């Protein structure tokens, strides 16, 4: 009995000492971090603080570098992405590339300042923040792959158009936990806006495909 008590205490004390030296466990850390998030936006309206709440997929996709998704997690993210898909009411997945051209260079939309959502005519599609699209455009980022000649390389068959539309609508369908936002699924872009961006990427007349 005495020996058991000593043994148990031995383990417990070791755990406490170890805990003190290394900090809280992952579960405790998550709880502490989430509590911090819940208090990070004082005075903000509930509909805005709701933006900081994670959905199930954001939870799965929040991981330290090198921590790979399990195949079960990846399947869940893909299934949610599949269920999120919506298409334009007119059924056209490729719209007007000229409207797309305006959208891809627009980096604004949904920003908050002073507790209010900034007023904009339309949310920008943000594309050139991260992707090179038009070979004549210098002001493009490189967080995502270069897409110059996207349609010229792939063509604009129905299959390519559908893939491109779905990739923009919910990038996690094809690349679970990709850095690319789920622009359609999150309600940031409308299906019609996405169709215009698709046209900008695939149309032979678009600057993307003219060298």
């Amino acid at each position, binding site marked *: 009995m005495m020996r058991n008590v000593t043994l148990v205490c031995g383990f417990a004390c070791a755990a406490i000492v170890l805990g003190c030296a290394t900090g809280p466990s992952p579960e405790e850390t998550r709880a502490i971090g989430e509590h911090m998030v819940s208090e990070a936006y*004082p005075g903000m309206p509930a509909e805005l603080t709701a933006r*900081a709440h994670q959905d199930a997929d954001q939870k799965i996709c929040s991981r330290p570098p090198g921590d790979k998704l399990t195949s079960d997690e990846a399947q869940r993210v893909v299934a949610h992405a599949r269920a999120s898909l919506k298409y334009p009411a007119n059924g056209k997945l490729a719209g007007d590339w000229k409207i797309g051209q305006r959208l891809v260079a627009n980096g604004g939309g949904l920003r908050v300042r002073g507790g209010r959502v900034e007023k904009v005519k339309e949310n920008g599609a943000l594309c050139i923040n991260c992707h090179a699209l038009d070979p004549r455009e210098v002001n493009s980022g490189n967080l995502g792959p270069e897409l110059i000649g996207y349609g010229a390389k792939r063509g604009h068959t129905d299959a390519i158009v559908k893939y491109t539309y779905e990739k923009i609508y919910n990038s996690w369908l094809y690349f679970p936990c990709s850095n690319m936002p789920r622009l359609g699924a999150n309600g940031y872009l409308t299906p019609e806006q996405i169709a215009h961006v698709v046209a900008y990427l695939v149309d032979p007349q678009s600057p993307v495909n003219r060298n």
Partner: protein
Amino acid sequence: METMRGCVAAAVLVLFSAPLPAQNAADGLAIGRQMLAEDNPGELWVERGKRLFFEKRGPKNASLEACDLGQGPGKVEGAFAQLPRYFADTDKVQDLESRLMTCMVTLQGFKREDIVKNRFGTLDRDSDMEALVSFVGSKSNGMKMAVPLAHPKEREAFKAGEYLFNRRSGPLDFSCATCHGDEGKRVRLQDLPNMTDAKQVQHVVATGWPAYRGTQATVRTMQHRLYDCNWQMRLPDLGYTSEMSIALTSYLNHRGNGGEIHLPGVRR
């Protein structure tokens, strides 16, 4: 001061708007940054901050000479190098800004909400906080970052900061790591430091914030940097000195240990 500041702002605008060959835009910015660093406009904020620190101010007509920034009352030398850290009197881990705020409230009698209201300067109104942070930051110049993880609450803040750095949320699914987790990345033409790289973290933490920002013609602080990232991520206004902001700073600053401090920095 205002005229001087206007001149500095004008000079900086000229500097940053000079036509540059497009493919060399990043190099051009680097040259501009170096020119500014050699004659850093942030020195004006350091001087003003020094005056504010020793001046008797506020409802209690007191200076900040009794303020303990972690090195003992009134000791500003080396304070920045060891922040954020745990403070027994508040029972909290505090960064430089939250600690200065504690002192301004308890010693000088300023109201917390007034400090928060004036946390970020505008072209019409200087921020005392931006000046004080510049002064205190500069008093660690030449020293190396040495942020402690001795107290359990310091380890808690560090671990929470790591968790939060990788936490995705918001309508664009972003975390800090989305933009600051890889090498050689840019948003449009803006270079993004890779905060998963030990050397870059040291550099950014020790020479990054507070920094004179040419595009804003003022010194900005680390709290402002985090607030602005939140804005880009489409999250609501980040609460000034919120525990989340301090945890993120703890995570970054501790990993910046060993970096040699040169503040204020100069940024675009």
